[in-house]
């Protein structure tokens, strides 16, 4: 089993670390560029939500992404110690609405669900653990 870990802090500029890590992992594990891009997007949306909403203040906090490739799946576990938040419970936006009725925003979690094949949330002691699974060709 192959694994990687991305260590992040709660600042949006760390998106660069996600991008760099996914570029390296994509090359190492030979993931097609389109899958790499959409997975990067799902990670960005999850990370941005944590940075913007999980913490009471701007004190430095660690956010870790554990990544493994196993049985034709990419498995990402995003861990933070912010307030409990289950994105799998977020309401679905209505993507059939015309432009004038579409709310500005609210798409991030929806995109995570669309891109990933499975999304699970667990609260373990003081930690949020969001697991994102993407099926790839083994």
């Amino acid at each position, binding site marked *: 089993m192959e694994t990687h870990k991305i260590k992040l802090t709660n600042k949006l500029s760390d998106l*660069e670390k996600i991008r760099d890590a996914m570029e390296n992992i994509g090359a190492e594990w030979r993931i097609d560029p389109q899958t790499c891009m959409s997975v990067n997007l799902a990670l960005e949306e999850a990370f941005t939500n944590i940075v913007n909403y999980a913490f009471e203040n701007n004190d430095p906090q660690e956010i870790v992404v554990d990544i493994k490739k196993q049985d034709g799946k990419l498995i990402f576990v995003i861990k933070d110690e912010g307030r409990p938040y289950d994105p799998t419970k977020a309401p679905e936006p209505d993507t059939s609405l015309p432009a004038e009725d579409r709310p500005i925003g609210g798409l991030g979690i929806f995109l995570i669900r669309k891109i990933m094949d499975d999304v699970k949330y667990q609260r373990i002691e003081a930690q949020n653990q969001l697991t994102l699974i993407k099926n790839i060709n083994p």
Partner: protein
Amino acid sequence: MNVSSEKVQDYLVINVEGRLDTTQSDSFEKQVMEMLTGDDKKVILDCEGLNYISSSGLRVFLIMQKKMAAEGGELRLCNLQPSIKEIFDMSGFSMIFTIHDDRDAALNA
């Protein structure tokens, strides 16, 4: 991320290049809002060089569309890379926007 604009026939063509992620979207919004002065009723957003977009970038596209519609103008998109088109399809944005294959098609539609 880079944004530039040019006049082509009676269109304002805005070119966006690079990555439109959460760290870039505020700057992108500010720059395109300065370009959309209300004088140009026909605007093309050429996405040929756009290789990544997240929900924060989609949000700015939606703001542009609403602004143009409110002013009686028209916004056309063109040259979406397949990975970007996929995100537009997923989010329902393909139905909201008028999307052309390339700039010529957008200019002559």
